[in-house]
């Protein structure tokens, strides 16, 4: 009973009370036991010590006593004993000598401080001992001694009391420490208990301030961390639960069919989407192994294996609904994994794609239909292009022939209008064709060697007349050091430039149109060029600029109507530029003109990648002092830049009077100008008047005069005015250079070198120039071509198809065949192949030029593949046809044309080798006053050209491409001056081959050049002899 009470009492006690009681009992018990042991041990030690000290004292005393006894000093012995009794714990000594005489020393008894119970419990033995005092085996007496225990008891009692005091102090301090330690921590512990209670009752915000000892504070922190974790866990559980509910709702509400299966294929969940899609309510689906698709068991097993391997995949299938309706479904399947990532089934999401499949099918059909339609459109376009071009050829050709006949002025005006309208219509058709080709992605760019300078200058040449007819300046600025030998599509680049320059001329009433070309980026293999066409026209509003490159769009509707055109030009240009790897832009402001510019990348010509292909610096004019008399600041700038590049010092004068002043001042300084370049359209005083003025002044009359004119100058007037050379604007840079060199050279030699006097190419059409076989099935085309060729002076044989052409070719000797491609019985390709086959054993080659209304690039390819030499697209103009014939007619074929006004001294039998017109012109100019000069020029050629020929052969032998190019260039230039055009062209081809580093081809061509040179030499020798004889 009392035990029970004690246990309950103990249970009610707090931690501190328990600890204090336990520690108290432990200390008291431990201290008591230790004290008892210490006392017992102390008593034993004292007993042993007393005995030991007694023994030691006697052992120490014995010899002292013996010494004194031997000499009979008993007083000393007595004193020794007394001293020893007083200072030690020995209670008494007694010395008894051998005669029985005794000496006793007794200590005064000490008082005993230990209580009787203590002496009774801790017994210290009283020690008594005696020792015999001997010396040398002789006994002199006995010494007795006894140890008193009083001091030992007192000392032991003191130790006992001290021990008790230590135990008491230890007990006190321990209890104090326990109290102090726990007093600070109990509060935290109580708060911890209270917090835990509150937390368990749902107060998740409760936290404990971590105070007290590290263990207690860390317990509080641990509680707080646990509370935080539990709180966030509860929060995330709540969120997770919400999300799960949401997910379950989404799954359930999803229109997609979602279901899960176990590995045996039994459906374990089935959402409403699945029920709606397949028609099985959940109750019918779940727990069953429904087969939903049309898969075979092997396919099902394969899918199951993929799922077990953890793969996710999707597949299309056909499924049957509960009502046996077939639907197309797209199923995405993923493995269903347990906590250990083991596959326990699958989850499938299916979508009904029946409608989608139907749409796809409809779309496919529609696309096929569209493609068919597009194909039909392309074919239609091609066919229409051909079909329109053929009648257009008739319209234009016939109009051109009509204009050659005698017409009244009204009739001529009508006919010219028809021709102009026809050309416009053809341009529009060409634009539409180009645009549709680009749109269809069928436009292919060429990538051939080209000279940018020539392409740009060709465009300028082409449009110069149109600009000049409007009173506009047309200038071109190409830096002399620009890399111009590149690979690209010269035709399309020219098309873009023509379009831009044409537009500029069209929309500019006065001022100038300038083309500038510059390099913006250059790598080892590529160069990017910037082409800029600026005008001084009306300008374009910002709004119009934003859509100017859109198709069928111009600056505004009114200009479209005013200026005509398809509105496709810029759109086509934009597309072409982008195809050439560049961009096109416009910068303009209303009333301030426009600048269209575009960039384009070109590959460098392979043979020139590793050498400097830039135009070689021309050093022959270095140091020449020139005065530029030009009213147009643009032209002034361009001329200045060119002349600076050539090393000439130059100065400009904007007006004739200023020019005269400058010339006079320079002459007065003793540093007269060598040459003056004068623009014909000067304000106030025209160029001829200025020339006369200059020549009339003795101080400045020696200056060489070169006139730049927009139209063909009256050479006679020019010569009379004292002008040395006359150049038509726009002036090609090389032409200007050569002209200046020649003028300077003539002056130095007091002989006018071949002046670059231009003359119309078709000024004097010849007759009987060669035999041409025209193969054409279309009667209109036959008449057009026949008319043009006859006007040109050719003898023409017409056949209707390829077979007739073969027959004619077999019978007659023709110089050239014009071959239509598409004809009945035998087309032009087959006929050409047959002709080439026939030619093979003979080694001869008849020039065959294709005539076709198809303007596609692949048509040209087809013609060349068939063995034709060139391709002429219908409709063609008289000029175009003439150029083509000039290019391909064998030189020996043309009989000399009877000149309307035969040159006074220019005759000869070798007119085929030499261009009669050039020689005649040269004769006219040079014989005017100084008849011996033509003889000298020819003699010069006869002496110098063999040297060039020799150099050429040497360079070819050494495969020195650069030297070949250089020599060929020189020979080309000098030959052209004496009218050896064919030789000049061969030299040009040779130069091109050399620039491509194709020395093999160059060597091959050299034979031809050499033969032609030989002919030219013979012809010129005859000319020389004739001239000399006369």
């Amino acid at each position, binding site marked *: 009973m009392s035990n029970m009470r004690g246990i309950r009492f103990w249970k009610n006690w707090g931690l501190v009370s328990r600890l204090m009681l336990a520690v108290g009992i432990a200390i008291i018990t431990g201290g008591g036991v230790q004290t008892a042991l210490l006392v017992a041990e102390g008593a034993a030690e004292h007993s042993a010590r007393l005995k030991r000290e007694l023994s030691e004292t006697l052992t120490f005393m014995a*010899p002292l006593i*013996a*010494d004194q006894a*031997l*000499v009979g*000093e008993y007083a000393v012995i007595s004193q020794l004993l007394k001293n020893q009794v007083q200072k030690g714990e020995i209670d008494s000594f007694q010395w008894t000598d051998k005669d029985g005489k005794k000496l006793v020393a007794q200590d005064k008894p000490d008082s005993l401080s230990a209580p009787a119970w203590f002496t009774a419990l801790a017994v210290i033995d009283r020690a008594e001992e005696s020792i015999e005092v001997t*010396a*040398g*085996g002789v006994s002199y007496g006995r010494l007795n001694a006894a140890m008193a225990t009083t001091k030992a008891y007192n000392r032991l009692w003191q130790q006992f009391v001290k021990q008790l005091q230590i135990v008491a102090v230890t007990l006190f301090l321990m209890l104090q420490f326990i109290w102090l330690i726990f007093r600070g921590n109990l509060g935290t512990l109580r708060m911890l208990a209270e917090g835990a209670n509150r937390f368990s009752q749902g107060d998740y915000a409760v936290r404990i301030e971590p105070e007290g000892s590290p263990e207690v504070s860390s317990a509080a922190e641990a509680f707080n961390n646990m509370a935080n974790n539990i709180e966030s866990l509860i929060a995330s559980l709540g969120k997770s639960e919400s999300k799960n509910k949401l997910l379950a709702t989404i799954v359930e509400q999803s229109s997609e069919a979602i279901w899960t299966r176990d590995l045996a294929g039994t459906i374990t969940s089935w959402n409403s989407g699945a029920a709606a899609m397949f028609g099985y309510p959940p109750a019918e689906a779940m727990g069953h192994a429904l087969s939903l698709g049309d898969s075979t068991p092997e396919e099902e097993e394969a899918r199951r294996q993929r799922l077990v391997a953890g793969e996710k995949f999707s597949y299309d299938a056909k499924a049957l609904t509960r009502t046996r309706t077939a639907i197309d479904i797209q199923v995405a399947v993923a493995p269903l994994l347990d906590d250990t990532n083991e596959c326990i089934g699958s989850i499938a999401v299916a979508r009904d794609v029946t409608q989608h499949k139907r749409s796809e099918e409809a779309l496919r059909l529609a696309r096929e239909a569209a493609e068919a339609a597009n194909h039909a459109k392309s074919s239609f376009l091609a066919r229409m292009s051909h079909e329109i071009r053929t009648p257009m050829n008739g319209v234009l050709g016939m109009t051109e022939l009509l204009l050659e006949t005698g017409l009244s002025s009204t009739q001529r005006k009508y006919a010219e209008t028809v021709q102009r309208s026809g050309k416009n219509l053809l341009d529009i058709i060409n634009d539409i064709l180009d645009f549709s080709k680009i749109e269809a992605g069928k436009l292919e760019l060429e990538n051939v060697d080209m000279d940018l300078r020539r392409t740009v200058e060709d465009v300028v040449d082409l449009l110069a007349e149109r600009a000049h007819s409007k009173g506009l300046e047309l200038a071109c600025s190409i830096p002399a050091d620009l890399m111009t030998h590149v690979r690209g599509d010269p035709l399309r680049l020219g098309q873009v430039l023509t379009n831009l320059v044409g537009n500029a001329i069209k929309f500019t009433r006065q001022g100038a149109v300038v083309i500038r070309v510059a390099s913006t980026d250059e790598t080892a293999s590529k160069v990017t060029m910037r082409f800029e066409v600026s005008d001084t026209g009306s300008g374009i509003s910002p709004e119009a600029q934003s859509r100017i490159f859109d198709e069928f769009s111009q600056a505004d509707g009114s200009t479209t109507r005013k200026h005509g055109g398809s509105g496709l030009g810029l759109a086509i240009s934009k597309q072409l530029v982008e195809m050439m790897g560049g961009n096109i832009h416009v910068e303009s402001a209303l009333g301030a003109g426009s600048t269209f510019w575009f960039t384009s990348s070109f590959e460098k010509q392979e043979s020139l990648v590793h050498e400097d292909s830039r135009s070689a610096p021309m050093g022959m004019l270095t140091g020449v002092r020139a005065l530029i008399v030009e009213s147009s600041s643009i032209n002034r700038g361009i001329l200045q830049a060119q002349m600076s590049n050539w090393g000439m010092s130059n100065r400009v004068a904007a007006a004739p009077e200023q020019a005269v002043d400058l010339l006079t001042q320079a002459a007065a300084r003793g540093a007269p100008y060598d040459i003056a370049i004068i623009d014909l359209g000067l304000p106030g005083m025209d160029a001829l008047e200025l020339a006369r003025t200059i020549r009339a002044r003795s101080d400045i009359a020696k200056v060489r005069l070169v006139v730049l004119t927009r139209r063909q100058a009256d050479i006679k007037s020019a010569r009379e005015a004292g002008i040395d050379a006359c150049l038509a604007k726009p002036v090609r840079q090389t032409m200007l250079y050569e002209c200046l060199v020649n003028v300077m050279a003539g002056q130095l030699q007091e002989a006018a070198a071949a002046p670059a006097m231009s003359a119309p190419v078709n000024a004097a059409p010849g007759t009987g120039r060669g035999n041409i076989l025209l193969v054409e099935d279309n009667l209109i085309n036959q008449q057009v071509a026949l008319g043009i060729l006859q006007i040109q002076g050719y003898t023409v044989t017409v056949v209707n198809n390829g077979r007739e052409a073969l027959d004619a070719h077999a019978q007659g000797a023709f110089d050239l065949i014009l071959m239509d491609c598409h004809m009945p019985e035998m087309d032009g390709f087959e006929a050409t192949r047959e002709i080439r086959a026939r030619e093979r054993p003979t080694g001869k080659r008849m020039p065959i030029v294709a005539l076709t209304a198809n303007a596609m690039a692949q048509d040209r390819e087809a013609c060349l593949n068939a063995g034709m030499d060139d391709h002429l697209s219908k409709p063609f103009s008289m000029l175009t046809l003439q150029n083509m014939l000039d290019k391909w007619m064998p030189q020996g074929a043309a009989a000399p044309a009877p000149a309307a006004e035969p040159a006074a001294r220019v005759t000869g039998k070798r007119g085929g080798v030499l261009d009669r017109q050039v020689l005649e012109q040269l004769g006219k100019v040079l014989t005017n006053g100084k008849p011996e000069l033509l003889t000298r020029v020819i003699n010069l050629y006869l002496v110098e050209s063999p040297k060039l020929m020799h150099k050429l052969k040497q360079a070819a032998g050494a495969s020195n491409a650069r030297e070949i190019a250089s020599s060929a260039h020189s020979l080309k230039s000098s030959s052209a001056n004496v009218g050896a055009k064919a030789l000049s062209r061969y030299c040009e081809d040779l130069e091109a081959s050399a620039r491509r580093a194709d020395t093999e081809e160059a060597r091959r061509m050299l034979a031809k050049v050499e033969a032609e040179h030989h002919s030219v030499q013979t012809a010129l020798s005859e000319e020389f002899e004739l001239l000399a004889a006369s």
Partner: protein
Amino acid sequence: MRLKTITGAAMILAAAVMLHSPGAAAQAQKAYSFNVLNQRSIALTAQYWNPILTHVSKKSGVPLELKLAKTAQEGNIIGEKFGYDFMYTNHFFTPERDRLGYKVIARPAGPGIRSTIVVPQDSPIQSLHELSGKDVAFVTPDAFLGYWLPMDALLRAKVRINVVFTGNQEASSAQLRVNKVAAAGVNSSVLARYARRESFNYRALWTSEAYQDLCIMASPKVPADKVAAVRAALINMINDPEGRQVLEAGADLLKSTGDLGFVAAENRDYDNYRKFYRTTQVK
């Protein structure tokens, strides 16, 4: 009856024989006092001499009792008053004491002894004259070898030194060893034993002629037979196994390696002492 009578008679006879044995007789007799000159400590002296005296008493039938004085002087005074029956000394050859009649009966075996004045081996002093004004250790004013002989030599060499008495031979040697004194006048034998024991190296400046060691003298008041018995017992000790054992134990005690035992001696063996005392300058 007869057997009882015979047994009783035998017992009486045996008791009588026992009562007439020399030990019993000696125990009954008055013991003769034997003084040993204070050369060593009292305890060592007693430890050495008591076994010898016990043996000699037993063999001679003359009970001898060791009597030591507190100092040599005191012993000499007691001897002068015939307070001792036998003496082991060499102080009694001065003319005054020579006249008292003590008779030399035996001496320890071995050669004579010499006095010497020594300095430590490494001392700079090379002659007696260099001791002038320095402290020199001597045993006591009565010591023949430890004062009289060396002091006489110094006086004859006219060297004035500071006399330091040390009490005994070993003390003088010890003082010299620890450099408390510049030189010491000591018994050469005692010094040699000390030096061997303490590994002390020394150098002699002067050494006397040989004198016999201390001798055992008998008071003229002791009956001649007693003296003869004691003398015989002493001389025979070396030949007696028991005596020899005692002597060897004594030699071990004193760490002596000299001859063992005692030999007979007479007064004339010590005439050079007497002569020295007559001529010495020591006062």
